[in-house]
């Protein structure tokens, strides 16, 4: 898959933002007034910034409102609804904390639930794709949810929880890499089933339909990025999990170091997200003899 920057930025930032909003909804940290205000600003900038950047790749962003209509069948539609509901509920809860110095806890719990639901619906957009075997497994939502929670805990200053969640999400991320590597072969789709010509023998692409490229090849066939995937996995894992855990566990606490841990985590998650797309192979590539 083509690793579109807008989608990488969107899933990375909004995942973090909704993770932070989840903890704020649970009252972790238990803040009011100006401190609460700044925590909520960070959560909203990340979540909303991510959502806005996701509209950049649309052909007709001005019609985006229509995307809320098909929640019965479409995960993208459900994501939009969950995101707007989470942001509205958390805005009310935040207003209580910031302006009225009062904790409307039921709203907080609801907002926390909706925030997680948003991350889950995002992950299901990818996990539902049978055409992309690497994504089409329960590990995909597990990865998105634990990454969002780990990043949220980190931003919310929940040191112990952050360490535990970072270790879990790191493990799940590594598992998605290992399991994902054989997913295409296990899916049973190959050039023989794609063309139905397998009953005659081995199929080889002889001539593509056109001499030039096309939308399908640009969007779905991204061979270049996979060359360095092992190196990038190590870089992503080190930045996203190893460095933050080391800082939180080993080094004495300071705000500067906490900031370094957060930035390192974000960079690592963005790198892993780039790989998530670049390594994903769509079955349509088979028609072109590519993966």
């Amino acid at each position, binding site marked *: 898959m083509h690793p579109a920057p807008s989608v990488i930025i969107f899933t990375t930032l909004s995942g973090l933002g909704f993770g932070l909003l989840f903890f704020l909804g649970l009252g972790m940290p238990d803040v009011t007034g100006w401190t609460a205000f700044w925590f909520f600003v960070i959560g909203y900038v990340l979540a909303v910034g991510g959502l806005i950047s996701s509209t950049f790749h*649309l052909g007709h962003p001005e019609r985006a409102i229509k995307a809320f209509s098909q929640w019965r069948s479409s995960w993208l539609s459900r994501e939009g609804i969950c995101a707007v509901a989470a942001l509205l509920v958390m805005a009310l809860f935040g207003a209580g904390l910031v302006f009225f110095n009062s904790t409307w806890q039921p709203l907080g719990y609801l907002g926390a639930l909706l925030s997680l639901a948003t991350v889950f619906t995002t992950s299901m957009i990818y996990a539902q794709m049978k*055409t992309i075997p690497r994504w089409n497994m329960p590990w995909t939502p597990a990865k998105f949810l634990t990454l969002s929670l780990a990043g949220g805990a980190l931003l919310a200053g929940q040191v112990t929880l952050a360490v535990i969640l970072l270790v879990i999400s790191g493990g799940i991320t590594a598992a998605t890499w290992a399991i994902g590597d054989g997913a295409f072969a296990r899916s049973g789709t190959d050039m023989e089933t794609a063309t139905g010509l397998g009953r005659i023998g081995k199929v080889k692409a002889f001539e593509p339909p056109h001499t030039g490229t096309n939308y*399908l090849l640009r969007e779905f066939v991204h061979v270049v990025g996979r060359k360095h995937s092992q190196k990038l996995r190590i870089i992503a894992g080190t930045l996203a999990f190893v460095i933050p855990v080391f800082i939180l566990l080993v080094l004495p606490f300071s705000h500067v170091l906490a900031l370094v841990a957060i930035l390192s985590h974000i960079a690592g998650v963005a790198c892993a997200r780039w790989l998530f797309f670049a390594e994903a192979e769509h079955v349509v590539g088979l028609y072109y003899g590519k993966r």
Partner: protein
Amino acid sequence: MTQLPTSTQKKLGLVIDLDTCVGCHACVISCKGWNTENYGAPLSDQDAYGANPSGTFLNRVHSYEVTPLATSAKPHPAAQTIHFPKSCLHCEDAPCVTVCPTGASYKREEDGIVLVNEKDCIGCGLCAWACPYGARELDQDEGVMKKCTLCVDRIYNENLPEVDRTPSCVRTCPAGARHFGDLGDPDSDVSQLVAERGGMDLMPEQGTKPVNKYLPPRPKDDLPEFDVLAPYLEPVAENSGGFIGWLDKALDKLPSKGAN
């Protein structure tokens, strides 16, 4: 509405004969011609006359080389070239429809045709991600999703002579490799053809239940093990006279290098 109908009254679709397709691409051109002028936004091209041309097509013809498995009778079977037209298969369980967030993609209850309502399409591309066959292309100029409409604006069009009320690709194919009809009716010509020739689904394991079927290439005849052209290369005249006869003898007399 992007929920799929539980069943459709008809299952209109194509049957493509991989045995007869000669890979001429006439169907590609006639499809582009008809559909750029009719239903919905035109099919744009980018850099059409430049170094890196690309464009939107609803039907593309691939070519494959298939090497049959070796047997003891035929240890070195000859490879076959097979031309392979591909467009939307109007799947019964169309994943492209259910993922659409806006309701722009839908499958018609009356005839099973899968269409895009371009006025509702936000160009998110998700339906193209969900299609295993590469049958949907986002038009770069218009920012909306394009796909085969089964020429919905021809097949019911009373302004056209009856012979033209069939998809443009089918009407154009010079080899008779494309057939159109109701695959939901077991008595229709296309259903009969599929039954007779063992019509197949593409990527059945994806669970899309395509309506379009492909007829597999028939087994190839064996070429006899002698030179079929030899009888035609025998000298026509044994004792020719005149200028040709003289030339023949003169050439025979020339010492030839390396020969004999």
